[in-house]
Every structure is written in C-alpha cells, then in structure tokens.
C-alpha cells in the first residue's frame, strides 16, 4: 500500500521507487552536490555507510573530508557540529540511535538551540541532527526510544519527522538548507518497509506544514513518523465498518502547523492523537490542549490519546504490548463516536 494517496510526485519529470533510507541518502547526496559547505559526520557513516545504510555510497562520492567517521562520542558529534556550523559549514550529524542522544543533550540544549538567540542573530548554527527513532524492530535495549518531547520543550529547535520516502527526501533537503538547527527523526521501523515513487531531481517539502494524507469526515487521526502508517491501517479497517477517518501527518512538530490540525478537527468534530512516546507530558497532550483552546465548540467528544505507555520501552518480547496498534486506534475512535 502507498502511504500517500495524493500524487505528490505530479510535476516531477522522473521518479524512482525508493525506501525511506534511500530517500534520506539521496537528499544528503543532492545537498552535498549543491552546496560544498554541507558535510556528514557521525559514527560508522563513512566506509560502513551507516548502520541503516542511510549514508551508503556518500564517502565514495564525496571523500572522507565531507563524510566523516567520528570517534564514539555523541557529545563531540554535536559539539563539533556547533563549531562547524557557527563558522560557515552545514553539518548533517547522525546520532546512531535516538536512545544514545543523552550524552549530547548539553550541546544540543545548552548550545545548538540557543546560539541564535543569545547572540541576537549574530551567530547561527545551521545544522541537522539525524536520529533514527522509535520501536518495532526488536533491537537490544536503548534502541527503540522516541524522545521528541525532550526537544519540543526546548525552544530553538525545529523538529521534523517524515513518514514516507517522498517527504523524507524533501524534508531532509529543506532541513539541510534551513538556517536553524533541525532535529530530523527518522522512523527506523519503516526505513525499508516499503518503497514509494520519489523524484530523482532535488526538491524540498516545506518545514512547518502538515499534510492530510487520508481524507475522512467523522474523526481526525493526528500522528507523525512510523505511526502514520498504523493510522492508515486503522482508517482502512474503520472504513470497512463505514466509519470515515481523516489522517493528518504532522511531518513537522515544531513549528507546528496548527491550521491544518484545527481545520480538520473542526470538520470532523473528533480527534485521536497517536504517538509512540509515553503518554504523560507527551506531545499528544499539547495537541489536545491546542484543540481545546481553539476548537472546543466544534468537538463532539473529548480528544483521545493512543500512545506508548508511561513505562520504560520494553525489550523485544514485550514490544507489542507498548506500541500503538490499529486496534487500539480503532477502539479510541469508537470511544469518540460513542461519547
């Protein structure tokens, strides 16, 4: 199945079928070709092509000075990127798994997010931090986390999460060209789960714009990243019961496209937010508050949240208990309909 029902490739001359991992790689390749100041750094991004092969072939194309295998040092990857970005380079840093970002938090929150503001615009850090995130691949401990909330409560970042190959390529290109630090969360569960038609030529997808990826009129499912596909599955399942669900793919979490969320919810009157991160203080709560503040009188039922639980992400055998499923989403939808 295709995640994008609207033909996003219309108007592009040539397309090819790519996975998200390939689309990410192609975005870096295109941007490095376009702009000599773009470089890639991280653990195993060079000769190995990245543990997910998302940098495959880049070192052969651009050499070790622009595709830099770093020592095992997450804080240095980000700290060096701050130094590089502040002096004219555009680093695209890879944190191998989002679960390993903690050592770099001081550099991210303490410096990258703050530089523009604290110098009143004199110094900026145009950098991208790519982080494979989320569960569903049965990995060892610390490889399944979704930490977007950490960064959404830290002003100064843009936070982008693609859900399909077309968006992955276009959003990453936009992130690399952006003059602010962008955290680019890659849904590793669907890195290679499917292929979509992706233009072979460079293009951007604007940061800060959500997309209605499945139209419906009784309930709005709001999600991002790997969960968008699960929402599609839930919408298909609900359609067989004659329940019409709309799916909004946020694509960017900060800055948030409020208009698209509110327009959809005001049309359907019901909303279910779906995310992998734990529920309490998760971004779903923020979206529910936003809908409450702006669209309360359009609502037929309270906003529901289908999320990870407030527990440590389970190891492989219990992963299925944690992650939102189409059944959990469908049950939440029915709760809003039965209210």
């Amino acid at each position, binding site marked *: 199945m295709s995640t994008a029902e609207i033909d996003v490739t219309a108007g592009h001359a040539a397309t090819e079928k790519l996975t998200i991992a390939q689309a990410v790689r192609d975005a870096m390749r295109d941007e490095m070709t376009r702009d000599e100041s773009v*470089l890639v750094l991280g653990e195993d991004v060079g000769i190995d092509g990245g543990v997910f092969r998302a940098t495959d072939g880049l070192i052969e194309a651009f050499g070790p*000075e*622009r595709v*830099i295998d*770093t*020592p095992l*040092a997450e*804080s*240095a990857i*980000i*700290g*060096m*990127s*701050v*130094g*590089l*970005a*502040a*002096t*004219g*380079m555009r680093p695209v840093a890879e944190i191998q798994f989002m679960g390993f970002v903690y*050592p770099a938090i*001081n*550099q991210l929150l*303490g*410096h990258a997010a703050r*530089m*523009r*503001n*604290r*110098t*009143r*615009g*004199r*110094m*900026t850090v145009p950098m991208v931090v790519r982080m494979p995130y989320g569960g569903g691949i049965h990995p060892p401990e610390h490889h399944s986390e979704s930490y977007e909330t950490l960064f959404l409560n830290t*002003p*100064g970042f*843009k936070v982008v999460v693609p859900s399909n190959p077309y968006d992955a390529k276009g959003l990453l290109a936009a992130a690399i060209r*952006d*003059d*602010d630090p962008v955290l680019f969360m890659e849904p590793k569960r669907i890195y290679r789960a499917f292929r979509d038609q992706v233009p072979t030529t460079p293009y951007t997808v604007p940061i*800060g714009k959500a997309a209605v990826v499945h139209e419906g009129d009784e309930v709005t499912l709001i999600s991002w990243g790997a969960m968008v596909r699960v929402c599609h599955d839930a919408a298909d399942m609900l359609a067989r019961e004659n329940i019409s669900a709309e799916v909004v793919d946020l694509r960017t979490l*900060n*800055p*948030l496209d*409020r208009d698209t969320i509110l327009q959809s919810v005001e049309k359907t009157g019901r909303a279910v937010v779906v995310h992998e991160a734990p529920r309490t203080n998760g971004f779903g709560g923020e979206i529910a508050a936003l809908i409450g503040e702006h669209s309360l009188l359009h609502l037929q039922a309270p906003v529901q949240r289908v999320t990870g639980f407030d527990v440590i992400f389970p190891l492989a055998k219990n992963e299925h208990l944690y992650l939102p499923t189409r059944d959990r989403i469908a049950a939440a939808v029915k709760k809003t309909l039965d209210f």
Partner: protein
Amino acid sequence: MPRTQVYHAITERLEILDTEGAVDSELMPEFEPDVIREIYRDMVLMRGMDSKALKLQRQGRMGTWPPIRGQEAIQAGVARAMGDADWLIPAFREHGIMLLRGVPAHLIYAYWAGDERGSSYPEGVRVFPVAVPVGSQWQHGTGVGLSLKLRGEKAAAVTLGGDGSTSEGDFHEAMNCAGVFKTNSVFVIQNNQWAISIPLHQQTAAETLAQKSHAYGIPGLQVDGNDVFAVYSAATEALDRARSGGGPTLIEAVTYRLGDHTTADDASRYREDSEVAEWEKRDPILRLKRYMEINGMWDEAQEQALAEEVLAWVDLQVANLEEMPPQDPRDIFTHMYSELPPHLKEQMGEVLGEVGS
C-alpha cells in the same frame, strides 16, 4: 612473553620571566620595547575593566561577575600571539582576551549585566559568545579547528577553559577528536587552581593537566601562567603548529584566581588568606612592570599616565554601557528562529499586551 614499555612521556614546563622581573634571555621572545609596553597596557586595561565591574556589581549596576584578577598574563599572552583570522572560543572567565580580540568592553559589561546584546559582537570579530556550561566550549574549539582545516584556512581556533572543566567528559571528547582529526586547534587551560571551592588536587590525581595531552596523542606543555612571555611563546608555537597543519596543542597555564569565583562567592569560606597573599607576590602585572623598570622601559610618570588613561577608558566603557537604548521587548522572540513562527508571534502579542507597547 616479556613485559615491555610501550609508551613513555615527558611533560615540560616553560618559564621565562620570574617574579623579580628577570628573564631567561635565551627563551625570551623578540619584542620591541613598544610592544612590551603595549602588552603591559593590555594587562592593566583588563584589570581596570575587571575592577570596575566589581564596583558596578556592588552598586547594583552589574549582575554576577566572574573576576579575572591574577589571570591577565594568560589572556594578554595568548591574545598577542593570535592573528586576525584566528577564532577565540572562551569559557566565562575570559573577558580580558575577549576584549583584546575585538569585543567592545561595554558589550562584555552588557552581557554580565543581563543583556543578550552583549553577545552580539561587531561584524568580523572572530569570537564565540561566553560558554557557561563548564567544559562544553572545548568541543566547539575542536569543531572550529576542523572547520578551518577543511576550508584550508591558515588560521587556528583558540579555546580557553578552567582547570575544573578538564574533569568534564566534553574535555575528553574534544581532545580526543582534535587529536584524531588533527584539527587547527589550540587549547589553553587557565589552571587557576580553584573551581569554586574545589582545589586542583580534588579535581584530578594527575600531577599536571598538560600531561593529559599524551593520552590524546597531541603535544602538551605547562607554562607559568603569570609569565606573559612564557604564555606568548607557548601560544605562538602552538598557533604555528595548528595553522600549518601540524594539529592541536594543549597548553596548561598555571595561575591563581586572586578573586572570588564570582561576585556571588566568598572564597574565604574555603581557602586561606595566606595562600592568596603568596600568589599576590607572583602577580603577573607587577612582574612585567619590574622587568620594564629594570630594563629602562618604564618609569613612575608613565605608570601614572597609564593609570589615568585606564580610568578614563573604563569610565567611557561604563558610559557606553549605560547609554545603550533599552531592549525592544520583542527581542526575546525575534531571534529564536530565522523566521518568527506563528506560535511565537502569538506569544509576542501577549508580552506586548502586558508591557503596553
């Protein structure tokens, strides 16, 4: 199988100017008397700026200020060795070198008085803003050094930090990566022997901080940090190495924090006055003055004239500070992103509503 020695290291210390003003003529860098007088003036200016800030703080016209008293030789010596294309990455006790590298004093004051415009330096000033999270700046120094190397600039990134910051993980990562990538970096530890209340021996079991360089495969050197000639000489050697592709250097400059950690600290709670008095005798400014007097470069009239010049200069800096127009309340939002996103536009409206603009 035998047990053999696989590594052996020696760490050197460089001293040129002693406390009585005598120099080692073989090691003494070549300076015209005018340049030596300029270096002296640099140090006296720093001390003037520092002393005034302490007064302003007591009068409620300045926020928390970390004094640099006693550390002027490091900052003047390194600054003198630097060139126009070199970058400076300071921690937060580096006002002196920031001043010498082109940051106007009234902006340094403004930052510590609580105004972000104080970190918005004039175009072309290659200085990073103050880094408060201890040790975090070492990583930027590696990144900037890498940036200069990749772009083939014959320039170096000079990063300063305190002895306490060498205990942070970021110090290790920065030195390690600088060594691996042979970045155009010079790292200068201002070892003032106290990290707030923690003396050096509680910070590390290592005999020196310079010797840590061995573990990263980079050259290291200890210098008398109250000896401006030794600091200059070590910095020049390190800068030449960095600019010519020879990679990074770690310099430990041993000095002493004559003042409190900041104006919010009372050092008498944790250290003896007698220790401070001992280090007052090794004052870097006094030492250079003795050298100039012995060598007929300086007299009481010149000293008096300089003191007056510095007082007037400091007053002018304070006037510049206090003449800064108030900040626009919108400024706390304006510089968060390259473009103001809708939610910040809305929040800006809330602030403007409250302040009635």
